[in-house]
């Protein structure tokens, strides 16, 4: 019978997940492998050329190769999304576990979290950025602000229900300390949910990054970022230069789709595994 540790399960990986992850990695590697300099790329000689032709995705109003820009965008958008997801996870999971205890601290913490989440977080992110300055890492902060509460709630909810299970009672009966129960017994049994949520978070983060870039937050021109490209190309749609905005848009769409598919398959494969 197949074993169920994370490592062994991944070895027997579902093809869709493998393809999805593979593609994403390939894109990131490609993005860095192909050298790109936005300044060098600009060439007033060839503004707004339509695809296909010499340039597969055409050129934008500054003469830059849209294809290479979309690829370069992956250099920033994807790693930022993954970083944002990682930070949310690292903060959210332990807090979620701690909040699942039956203690006054946990109660108060959750009430505090409710109040925190009452703020429209995107607005909060924008405010923070305007106060702290427009740095790239502010985007990661923004994503973390939005997603850490989600991880906290999810992990807490799983942990609460796990605390009722017999093996947790058994752990307490053999004298396990609270932290042992949390990290040896609760945490390993929440990894399924965490993985799925992580994938969904990554998907959503791409959109957040693109939105922020569209608003001019985080990405400074002439850096290539899909959101910024969409913004720059938005007017182009009305004048008929559709390719400048559409291709980065498709890139966002495809990434979100890939992350969602991975999340979906993970959920199915992992829950099937749990049922044995």
């Amino acid at each position: 019978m197949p074993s169920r540790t994370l490592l062994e399960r991944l070895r027997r990986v579902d093809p869709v997940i493998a393809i999805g992850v593979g593609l994403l990695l390939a894109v990131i590697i490609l993005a860095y492998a192909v050298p790109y300099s936005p300044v060098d790329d600009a060439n007033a000689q060839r503004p707004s050329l339509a695809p296909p032709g010499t340039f597969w995705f055409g050129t934008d109003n500054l003469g830059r190769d849209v294809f290479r820009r979309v690829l370069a965008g992956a250099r920033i958008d994807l790693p930022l999304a993954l970083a944002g997801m990682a930070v949310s996870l690292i903060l959210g999971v332990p807090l979620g576990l701690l909040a699942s205890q039956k203690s006054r601290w946990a109660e108060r913490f959750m009430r505090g979290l409710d109040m925190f989440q009452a703020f429209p977080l995107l607005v909060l992110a924008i405010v923070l950025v305007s106060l702290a300055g427009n740095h790239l890492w502010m985007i990661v902060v923004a994503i973390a602000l939005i997603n850490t509460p989600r991880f906290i709630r999810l992990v807490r909810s799983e942990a609460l229900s796990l605390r009722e299970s017999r093996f947790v009672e058994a752990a307490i009966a053999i004298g396990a300390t609270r932290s042992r129960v949390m990290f040896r017994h609760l945490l390993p049994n929440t990894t399924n949910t965490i993985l799925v949520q992580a994938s969904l978070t990554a998907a959503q983060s791409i959109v957040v990054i693109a939105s922020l870039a569209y608003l001019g937050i985080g990405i400074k021109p002439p850096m290539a970022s899909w959101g910024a490209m969409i913004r720059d190309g938005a007017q182009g749609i009305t004048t008929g230069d559709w390719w400048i905005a559409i291709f980065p848009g498709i890139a966002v769409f495809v990434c979100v789709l890939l992350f969602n598919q991975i999340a979906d398959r993970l959920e199915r494969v992992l829950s099937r595994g749990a049922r044995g």
Partner: protein
Amino acid sequence: MVNAVNGVSFEIEAGETVALIGESGSGKSTIARLALRLYELNQGTVEFDGRDLTKLDREELRHLRSAMTIVFQEPYESLNPRQRIGRTIEEPLVIHHPDMSAADRHARVIDTLNHVALGENFYDRFPHELSGGQQQRVGIARAIVTRPKFIVLDEPTSSLDLSVRAQILQLLNDLQDEFNLAYLFISHDIHTVEYVSDRICVMYLGQIVEVGPTAEVFANPQHPYTQALLSSSLSADPRVKKDRFLLGGEIPSATNLPPGCFLHGRCPIGDDACAAAHVPLHAFKGTHEVACVKVPFAGGGS
């Protein structure tokens, strides 16, 4: 408010098996947890090895858990599905004997696996790879690895197939002899309890209605509930005809207990005198005690 357990007292000597038998709502599972202070008592004391568990602080209580352990009813659910068998059995050693080296711990776990008739190859397996009987052996292994003095067994064979039950009961017997263990054995099955226990407490709605040496109580049941319980068991020998069954009605809810004797209303011999006041246990014969106004006291009288 649910009165799960109402004024229950009993003692267990080293090497002895005391059984608690009763149906749902009898409080037997609650007592199992209270005896280890896994639940908090509202009132009363639990003395283990001369120390009152209710007076200990959290750390002291935690350390005592190497000496008093529990085996649960559901073998699969009581094991962490993500943890290998070896680690599960090793965990109490890690918690209570931090001075033990990894090699020593490993050796002790293997030794314990052998004690429960599981081979070394089970060390690296996961719970779902094992059968119900094997899973319960792991549960037992975990409960004996720290060489405790007292084990609570909460319906340890109820979820197992008949052919496996016998194996596990035999194992528990052997371990008790080898390590001089005291057992609190909780069950609802007459046959099992009769086989394993030295003394038995019959419980109904949170109270002990009859207690005494097992052989004596089964040969000479005095409380109507005990009699009903015994007659409810069906022999697999068709030549042994089933007794006429005695109790009518449903088991009342623990939130709505009748005044006086809890069996009143279902009891074939009850009358108004029974509904009047709470009925305490009184001696019927030697250490055989009963909580029923219709049963004579030891030495005559009532």
